């Protein structure tokens, strides 16, 4: 037993999270294979995860957490099937097959499960919630806290999604070759959303909250390792590794958010940056460019720059122009606007950024970016108005604090 008695300590919680994450998805997949009932399999594992959180917190993580979870999940699945008073054959199969299977890395059953949970027939929020629960092993309560949503809302989202999977027969299989690229993109998008959800959310008040950014990094690694020939999977893994490498510098000692321009770059994780560079080289060798590789290449430019000013902005602008071929989203165009401002000046960038107003008026970073450009142009009044609008629109406490500080500075300068 590994003592995890310090229930509130971050280390013990991380160990709990890692132990559950490593096992939960595989057990859902194998129980689904044995029972043929996705809902029963998924609920049984969710219950086992809740039991594990309670028990392991008290008595420590068992030596074989996977075996522990599998035994608990099977017992729960048996109970559920007995209650349904049917599928006697399945009950027998579950009873016989008590030997704990070790997951084999060449045929990871979690991949088909992941592709099923990220099926385009499900709403994006449902894909995210279901992936977190079924593949990554989060509890409904942890998901709700991460999304700042209520537990019943998340629970209902998951119930609806599972009902659709069962009733509409959404297959938990790898997609057909002609759909492979699009479906992989769906999986990677969910993983990316998961990372961003964790990246912006502040550390939870509850001790047992999961670090979604960590979970997403793990998931990106799982996909890239399982599908080594997929350039975009490597690209996303590189991108998230790079973003994570900068994480230690994103907050100062007082817990305040620090923007990329002002970060202490000596605190970036150089080993992680090097490993991301290698991932990106492997991806490039496959000669199938895509949006995640390009975003990773942009992040790599930042990671190798000695300072914000000494960044290779012309190179970044070229990469954004390439990225726009794959991703025309307004947020990508906004980011291109930042690079444009560095290369051709704020006076050239502001009109470009302003064209995005109809699509991005409700997005705080649109107004924060405008404020930045306006400040550079000496229009302090307009900059303050834009920052005030950004402050209104963000619900993230760390971002609110940063914007308030900036506004105080602007008002003092007026």
């Amino acid at each position, binding site marked *: 037993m590994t003592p995890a008695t310090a229930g509130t300590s971050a280390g013990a919680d991380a160990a709990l999270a890692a132990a559950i994450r490593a096992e939960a998805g595989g057990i859902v997949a194998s129980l689904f294979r044995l029972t043929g009932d996705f809902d029963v399999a998924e609920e049984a594992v969710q219950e086992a995860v809740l039991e594990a959180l309670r028990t392991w917190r008290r008595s420590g993580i068992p030596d074989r957490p996977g075996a522990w979870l599998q035994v608990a999940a099977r017992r729960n699945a048996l109970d559920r099937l007995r209650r349904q008073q*049917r599928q006697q054959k399945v009950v027998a199969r579950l009873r016989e097959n008590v030997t704990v299977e070790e997951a084999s890395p060449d045929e990871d059953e979690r991949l088909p499960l992941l592709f099923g949970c990220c*099926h385009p027939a499900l709403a994006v929020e449902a894909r995210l919630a279901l992936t977190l629960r079924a593949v990554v092993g989060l509890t409904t309560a942890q998901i709700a806290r991460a999304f700042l949503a209520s537990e019943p809302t998340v629970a209902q989202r998951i119930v609806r999604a599972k009902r659709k999977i069962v*009733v*509409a*027969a*959404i*297959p938990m*299989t790898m997609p057909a070759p002609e759909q492979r690229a699009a479906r992989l993109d769906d999986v990677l998008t969910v993983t990316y959303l998961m990372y961003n959800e964790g990246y912006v959310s502040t550390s939870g008040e509850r001790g047992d909250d999961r670090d979604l950014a960590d979970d997403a990094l793990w998931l990106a690694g799982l996909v890239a390792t399982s599908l080594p020939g997929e350039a975009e999977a490597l690209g996303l893994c590189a991108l998230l590794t790079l973003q994570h490498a900068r994480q230690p510098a994103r907050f100062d000692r007082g817990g305040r958010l620090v923007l990329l321009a002002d970060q202490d770059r000596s605190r970036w994780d150089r080993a992680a940056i090097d490993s991301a560079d290698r991932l990106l080289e492997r991806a490039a060798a496959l000669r199938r460019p895509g949006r995640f590789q390009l975003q990773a290449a942009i992040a790599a430019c930042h990671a190798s720059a000695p300072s914000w000013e000494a960044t290779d902005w012309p190179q970044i602008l070229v990469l954004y122009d390439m990225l726009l071929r794959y991703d025309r989203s307004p947020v990508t165009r906004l980011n291109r606007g930042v690079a444009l401002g560095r290369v051709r000046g704020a006076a050239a960038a502001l009109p470009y950024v302003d064209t995005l107003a109809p699509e991005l008026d409700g997005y705080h970073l649109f107004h924060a970016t405008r404020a930045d450009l306006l400040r550079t142009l000496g229009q302090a009044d307009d900059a303050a108005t834009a920052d005030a609008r950004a402050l209104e629109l963000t619900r993230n406490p760390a971002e609110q604090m940063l914007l308030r500080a900036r506004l105080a500075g602007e008002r003092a300068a007026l």
Partner: protein
Amino acid sequence: MKYVLMFCDTPSLYDQADPDEAKATYEEIFAWFGEHAAAGRIADGGAELQPVTTATTVKSGTDGPVVVDGPFSEAKEVVGGFTVIDVPDLDAALEMARSWPALKFPGVSVEVRPVVDHSEG
């Protein structure tokens, strides 16, 4: 696993379609049915519907059913026909829907809905 494919289109966009292309598409649709029927994927050929201008709707009213002119909803898109298919799973159903020849025209969509199976307890 049975699904209904509902073939929908947008009448306001009809005049944008080239008549020759529309005629050619009709032939492709026949071929589509032929191919999938031969593969055993069509459980019920369904029906192609007359234009929505010929629709009459019976609605519930406070004093009993009321008969009104027009389709059941005010939506711009209308159902133009349907067919019942029998395939292993949703991916197979979506694959069929994706190959529906009329999808090259704007305003066309195919809704895929699983059918309630009354054979199970």
